[in-house]
């Protein structure tokens, strides 16, 4: 048998009742989900939805106000043993501007003596024609992103958290960096959690999805499973309101154009009547949910947290 890189029974990241309060209110509220090890997970949501907050929690840079977030099936991200196993690239790609590219990679070696992989880090930097003596402060945004990714991949983490990693890369470099990420995942079964609002860059790359909006989890689970329980239904719009055939299914979104109605349904069995039914694309699924904030959240069974935590306290 060919083994899949993901290990459905091992957990890379899970949360129960997770909440983070900022000065201006709740950035995350009552979030529960689970990401199995070895998955490439897309963390999707509008700007300000809480994606970055969630990633910085998982990176051990801050702590939750309520609930808990665990990595590797039980450790806190800030635990001494967990830290070397987590890689993180923040959205602003912070690097020391006065150091050179070579020195920045040496930072990776000095601060990750147990895991540092010179070959990987140097390959990524060399592919971008970055001379080791170039100062970080003199690089372009895309070049800095390359160095930040080289640093993160050189650490060889088991869980790699990337906040909008590809946003300032040109298409060629974006393809190359995605290929690097996927190679790392193929070789070391790395779990990758990638925040993005560019939906097109996720299709075919991610096999797991976490949709966050307004600080809450809206969808969580295997992309395939999430797609297969939804149907894009098209047909004649006969009367006011939703067609009778839709009862029994959850209507995520419906739109009427002239005499035609198009709806994204969370189907429970086949839809009766004369309808053109298709499986939605990932982009269609995400857009429909982003446009309909009232649709009930959905977690596939694999995305239900398995950790034992005290009942989440709902802060008032």
């Amino acid at each position, binding site marked *: 048998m060919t083994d899949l890189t993901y290990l459905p029974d091992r957990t890379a990241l899970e949360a129960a009742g997770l909440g983070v309060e900022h000065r201006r209110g709740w950035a995350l509220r009552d979030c529960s989900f689970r990401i199995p090890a070895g998955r490439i997970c897309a963390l999707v949501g509008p700007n300000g939805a809480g994606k970055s907050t969630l990633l*910085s929690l998982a*990176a*051990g*840079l*801050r*702590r939750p106000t309520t609930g808990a977030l665990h990595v590797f099936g039980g450790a806190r991200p*800030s635990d*001494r043993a967990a*830290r*070397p196993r*987590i*890689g*993180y690239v*923040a959205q*602003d790609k*912070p*690097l*020391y501007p*006065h*150091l*050179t*590219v*070579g*020195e920045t990679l*040496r*930072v*990776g*070696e*000095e*601060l*990750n*003596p*147990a*895991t540092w992989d*010179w070959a990987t880090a*140097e390959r990524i930097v060399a592919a971008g024609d970055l*001379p*080791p*003596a*170039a*100062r970080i402060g*003199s690089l372009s945004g895309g070049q800095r992103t390359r160095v930040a990714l080289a*640093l993160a991949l050189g*650490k060889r983490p088991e869980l790699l958290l990337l906040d909008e990693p590809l946003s300032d890369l040109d298409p060629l470099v974006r393809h190359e960096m995605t290929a690097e990420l996927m190679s790392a995942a193929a070789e070391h079964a790395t779990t990758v959690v990638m925040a993005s609002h560019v939906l097109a860059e996720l299709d075919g790359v991610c096999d797991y999805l976490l949709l966050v909006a307004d600080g809450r989890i809206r969808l969580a689970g295997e992309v395939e499973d999430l797609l297969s329980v939804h149907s894009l239904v098209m047909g004649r719009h006969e009367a006011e309101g939703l067609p009778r055939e839709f009862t029994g299914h959850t209507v995520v979104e419906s739109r009427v154009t002239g005499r035609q109605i198009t709806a994204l349904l969370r189907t429970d069995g086949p839809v009766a009547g004369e309808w053109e039914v298709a499986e939605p694309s990932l982009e269609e699924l995400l857009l429909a949910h982003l446009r309909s904030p009232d649709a009930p959240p959905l977690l596939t069974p694999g995305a239900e947290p398995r950790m034992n935590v005290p009942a989440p306290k709902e802060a008032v």
Partner: protein
Amino acid sequence: MTATATPLAAAPAGARPRAGLRGLPWLVLRQHRVTAWCAASALAALVVGLVWLRFGMDDFIDSRAIRDACITSTECPTAQATVDYFRRTAGDLLHYLGYPLMLLPPIAGMFVAGPVVARELESGTYKLAWTQSVSPLRWFAVKLSVPAVAVLAGGSLLSVAYTWAWQAVPEVLLPGQAWYHSFDTLGAAPVAHALLGIAVGALAGLLVKRAVPAMGAALVGYLVLAGELLDNLRAHLVGPVTQLSAAQPGLIRDRTWMLERGIVTRTGEHIAEPNCGVDVSPEGCLARHDGAGWYLEFHPYSHFWPLQWAEAGVSVVLAAVVTGGAVWLLRRMYR
């Protein structure tokens, strides 16, 4: 923009055998390489200057035979010109060479507050450090230890050199630089103060999180602690000597730090510097306050080192408390 190659970044490929500092201390030193070089150069220049000054002063004092020079010009008018010359040249030089030691604590504090701690929090590079295999606590500990070790080593060397140069001069030659006036630049005090400055700077950096305001906060914090607390505490760190006498004691005494003169009443009460107005004789003053005699509180020179170590101890304890507060804050903020 062309980049400058550095020897640290030279070797590509393969395993890296390295000598010298490793890990986080290497990074902290690399980040502040320019500052470290400047500080080391300044230290070397100051030490050389102090050694040269000491030999020069020894030579001058012995050759002009002014070691026992009298204090007032009326007693020995011939030596006075030489003494004045000495005060204007060597004396001023010694005085100015004490400034670096006096300024070391606030400068160290501002440096740790701004460039070392707050700048990383401000620019977000702490996220880079903390998501390698380094915990925030260890990061903070090293950020604090590297300047602390540098100050302990460099500050001690400078202080030893300065104290040694200062000891060449009899107090009568430079009464303005008597041990109790130059206390902050002698012995263990400047080094201990610098450690306190570093601790205050670290706390300010964590609290303010922005480089320039954090430096201001560190300066104010240090001045309050050292200027108000330590300065007022100093005289009481070691019990002063109290002398009783029937006649009013004089205030000028060689190598002695005068603290207080006053009247002891018949009930045993101490009245400091009683205000009897002009034209009232000491006896009259005594009678007016129903006094039994006079008292004089002072620290003799023999109290110099006990006072130095006591003040250093208090400073270090204060530094430890402030550091503890900073660690508590860090744990509360990020874990």
